[in-house]
């Protein structure tokens, strides 16, 4: 066994500090390599997307998966979030006598934050991990290699349609989450808590503007893009076996979710800056 790499032996003879540095070095290098890999992957996908039309047969199933099959779960969770917001905010607002402003709070949180993030999270969980599992299985069973040998580029054939489905249909899912959340919040506040219908409506209209609504939609497009790229990347780089596929699916969701929140933060800061620049004042609930 003379030719086995000598790393293990040499590592154990090093001091703890050397080992600590090597371990962290490995983690950092691996992390950077992956960021570079994902960027390259996204770049190749963009090149394919803009140089050649996607094949028709590949688009429809993905649009159906993302747009139609995800709609019920997004609607359901949206409704619940709307109601939860009403429950959560009611007592605090009631204690300072401002319960009539509830509509503004709930709807603002929904269209700016919770609707887009919720729709993206459901998409990452439902569609993202499924994409990673399907592509991972295709990788493990050599179907991706087969595509390539038969002259179909796997990125053009598999990734581009998934990406398009995600970025084009996530706004619809976000609108659905927003709408059902607003309905759920209204239902709980007005019907169950007995807040005045007219006051609730007026307040909602006063505080939630077009900018809030569109900033939510705008963010969601980025969320959709991240979900597709990360999930497809994890699928393409799946390790062998059922375990590899399982890990790819889990990793697709976890990475997408972390990135969704990180991008959300960055875009919020950016959008706030734009809002201030345009209107010179901030929206206030009071």
């Amino acid at each position, binding site marked *: *066994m003379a030719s086995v*790499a000598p790393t293990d032996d040499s590592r154990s003879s090093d001091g703890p500090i050397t080992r600590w540095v090597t371990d962290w070095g490995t983690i950092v290098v691996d992390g950077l390599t992956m960021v570079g890999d994902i960027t390259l992957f996204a770049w190749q996908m963009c090149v394919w997307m803009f140089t050649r039309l996607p094949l028709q047969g590949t688009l429809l199933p993905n649009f159906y998966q993302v747009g139609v099959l995800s709609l019920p779960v997004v609607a359901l969770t949206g409704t619940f979030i709307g109601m939860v917001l009403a429950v959560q905010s009611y007592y605090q607002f009631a204690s300072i006598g401002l319960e009539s402003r509830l509509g503004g709070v709930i709807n603002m949180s929904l269209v700016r934050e919770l609707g887009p993030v919720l729709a993206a999270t459901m998409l990452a969980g439902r569609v993202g991990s499924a994409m990673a599992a399907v592509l991972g*299985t*295709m990788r493990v069973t*050599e*179907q991706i*290699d087969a595509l*390539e*040998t*038969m002259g179909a580029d796997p990125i053009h054939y598999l990734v581009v349609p998934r990406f398009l489905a995600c970025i084009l249909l996530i706004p619809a899912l976000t609108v659905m989450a927003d709408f059902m959340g607003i309905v759920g919040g209204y239902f709980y506040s007005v019907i169950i808590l007995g807040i005045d219908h007219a006051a609730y409506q007026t307040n909602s209209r006063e505080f939630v503007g077009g900018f809030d609504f569109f900033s939510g939609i705008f963010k969601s497009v980025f969320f959709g893009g991240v979900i597709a790229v990360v999930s497809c990347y994890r699928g393409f780089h799946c390790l062998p076996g059922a375990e590899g596929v399982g890990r790819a699916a889990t990793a697709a969701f976890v990475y997408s979710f972390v990135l969704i929140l990180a991008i959300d933060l960055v875009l919020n800061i950016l959008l706030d800056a734009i809002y201030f620049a345009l209107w010179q004042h901030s929206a206030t609930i009071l």
Partner: protein
Amino acid sequence: MTEPIAAPEFDESRLSLRESCGSSEPNDSNDAPLVEADDVSVQFAGQSILKEVTLRIPRGQTLAIIGESGCGKTVLMKTLIGLVKPTSGRVLFDGNDLSSLNYAALTETRRRLGFVFQNAALFDSMTIFQNVAFPLRQHEQLSPEEIEAEVMQRLAEVGLPDEVARKRPAELSGGMRKRVGLARALILKPELVLYDEPTTGLDPIMSDVINELILSTRRKYPVTSVIVTHDMRTARKVADRVLMLFPRTRLRSDQSQILFDGPPSQLEHAEDRRVRQFVRGEAGERLMELRASQNE
């Protein structure tokens, strides 16, 4: 380095076998080889799988690659057609360096080869018909009737009944799937066909059916074939040349990974004991090695 350097004790056998092998090749006298790997090395995550492998496959030859599981046979085959990019060295297909080709040229090159994957690699999301029609739709402008006729004929050639065409890959047995994979790989009449363990996991009868299909393809038109196999019957029956690959990790760095390169009839008389043991299926010192590595 132009040729992998074999350990001294194998050197002579390799040379003499080369010559005898060369004389049995009708096509290889002046034609350039169809596939040529020069000093190809492949590493995955720092682990060396192939090191400085040099291989020339003349037109019309049927080459069998044997060797134990995990020694890199599949990786070698994928490297030959550019599915795996070599870490160093280059691969020429019909004189063109694969890494220098642009997308259109690479697609055109891939039209000329067929790959039969180990577990068929049929697309789960498509029917058998769509699977077999895939290369046709990808590369040729044919009417639906022409495609239908061609696909049904190919399925019949590999002995599959018509109703199979409407089924999905998951509904077929392993042997049927392999035959569909064969039909799909052969539908464009490729110049080079690569078979990855075409008979592994099949019953003896079905194995022989596959062997016959490989032979009948060769009878129909001048095809160059590379067959990865563990099945010595397949190697003897269909190959004119056998190459034995050895796992990189169990070799010294100066030893060649190719333990044997010659006609199948010479396998039994190979100088290298490991080749003879592999052919006869004897564990030999491998048992001792495994025990020793357990005790480590």
